[in-house]
């Protein structure tokens, strides 16, 4: 907490407003009550003027209109937007994920299901099943933060689709790999320059 000490609460609460006390700048909000207001009409007409201004401005030039005509017009999601999950790929096209289970561990919604399996090659381990129930997902992004392999990301720029059946909302490994791109984040101690080198990753291009 800051070292600054303001007047104590009790002192402040004993005053009933109006005056400025100590360092607390108190501003008493006004209760305007002019004759103009009392006879209703002038302010009512002024109010009608404000809305009529919007009406005509929007009718003829869409001046204030903020509506986006969704399926035809689409706003571009910001880069940080958390959309549907995607799984990244290794150089050889295999899934980066090694089923370390940090994402299901950190997931507050318990929406990630991973069943690991042994690969038999040098990667040792990979997910046999990797499913995310997008209905349970709270889109907090903690899984991305937790992934120690740059395997799961949410920057796909695609939002979760509407589904008719709950089962359809489950994203499988194949679904997420389809959105995946190659990741250059290397692993296992490449050398002294990791401190300087920033991973440059090809940005995923969402389908238009």
């Amino acid at each position, binding site marked *: 907490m800051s070292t600054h000490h303001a007047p104590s609460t009790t002192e402040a609460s004993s005053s009933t407003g109006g005056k400025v006390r100590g360092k607390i700048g*108190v501003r008493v909000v006004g209760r305007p009550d002019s004759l103009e207001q009392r006879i209703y009409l002038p302010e009512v007409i002024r109010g009608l003027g404000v809305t009529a201004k919007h009406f005509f401005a929007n009718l003829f030039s869409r001046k204030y209109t903020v509506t986006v005509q969704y399926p035809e017009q689409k706003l571009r999601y910001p880069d940080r937007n958390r959309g549907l999950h995607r799984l990244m790929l290794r150089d050889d096209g295999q899934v980066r994920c090694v089923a370390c289970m940090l994402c299901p561990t950190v997931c*507050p919604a318990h929406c990630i299901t991973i069943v690991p399996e042994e690969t038999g090659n040098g990667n040792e381990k990979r997910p046999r099943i990797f499913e995310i129930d997008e209905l349970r997902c*709270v889109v907090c992004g903690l899984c991305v933060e937790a992934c120690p392999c740059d395997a799961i990301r949410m920057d796909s720029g695609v939002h979760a689709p509407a589904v008719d059946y709950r089962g359809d909302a489950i994203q499988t490994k194949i679904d997420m790999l389809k959105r995946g791109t190659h990741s250059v*984040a290397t692993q296992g101690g490449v050398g002294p320059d990791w401190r300087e080198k920033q991973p440059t990753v090809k940005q995923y291009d969402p389908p238009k």
Partner: protein
Amino acid sequence: MSTTTQSKTGSKKLALGMPTPEEITAGGIPGISARPKLPPDLMAKLNNEELEEVEDIELPTEPMTINMGPSHPATHGTVRIILTIDGETVRDSDVQVGYLHRCFEKEAEAATYTQVFPYTDRLNYVSPLLNNVGFALAVEKLLGIVDRLPERASYIRVIVGEISRITDHLTCLGASAMEVGGFTPFLWMIKVREWLWELLEELTGARLTHSYVRIGGVAQDLPEHFIEKLRAVLEKSVEVLGECESLLVKNRIFRDRMDGVGTISAEDAIAWGWTGPCLRSTGVPYDVRKDHPYLVYDRFEFDVPVGSVGDNYDRVAVRLEEIRQSMRILDQACKQIPAGPVLLDEPRICMPPKNAVYNTIESMIGHFKLIVDGIKVPPGEVYSYTEGGNGELGFYIVSDGSGRPYRCHVRAPSFIHTQALSKLILGAGIADIIPTFGLINMIGGECDR
């Protein structure tokens, strides 16, 4: 208006099979449990002379019990108000919260400290970042790292917090205007809120459920041109705010709806435990940001708006003025914000940089331990409080030294404000319930935590 007390001829079954008061008090109506007797001061108010004297000139009537909520258009956030009304006058009410029980506290106790952030997003879900900041500060206080927080992180927390406060007040005011029929200002305010949310989405990656703040700082630095965009949005917002004001504050009909309705005295408000804009509407200038400054709030010049009467109008005006004051803070914060890191460099608390995690075993171990075991917070208890959208948002956390809170309690302002609702609407008309309820700004997620 019909203001008779209950008829002395004894109660008989009303038309349409409505239950009689006796049946209700006896618990004889299925679904409505027996209610305790009213406290004496409320009884006294019920039986006051003003109400008595008109009895003779009107036909004898009997009070009607009617359910407002849990699903009722005005009860945003599922609350149930059992009303005993006489004509349109509320003679008694029983406000029942808990229909949205989300188990925040118990969920938090089963999760690591980092995992709690998505849950806090859903407390007061119109100002999630304020809850994020509040929770993070509580844990940081327990960890003893509040003084070591990076300056930039503190400024970012202030900025996102004040943006959230503006969105919170806009939602409250807009919804209240909408509920008394002013639909147009509501949508204008929502438009402004949308601009602010778009900014926040750019910053945090989500419009509403940000989970952006982390213990020891924030998750990510500000994106490029954020400050410029924020200034532009604020400039536009002031204009819209002025137009809304002209439709509401200056409009006699709106004033009539708000003036003198839901009045509470400063003493009562304090006794009920009120804080925030609701308390300030009664004239008590208590603002945690001023009285117990946290983060970098002591570096900003801003005023604490207070009301003079403590009625709904004061609550509207205080909130409107607070939006302007928040804009003032934002303006200063944008000027003062320094460069630097946004997360504390403390490997036992904050996640190591991703690049290091990929490449070194040391960071990888730290990363694993922080996620698997959680942040080990030393045993102890803490109460940390910040100025939330609705008032003093307090987190009481007991740590047993493990990676998750042993006990986590939220002092949710909405819950405390809602306590007094029954008193505020006593003797008012049905139509007064809505603005009073709306301006208390009960947020279900926070109230039924």
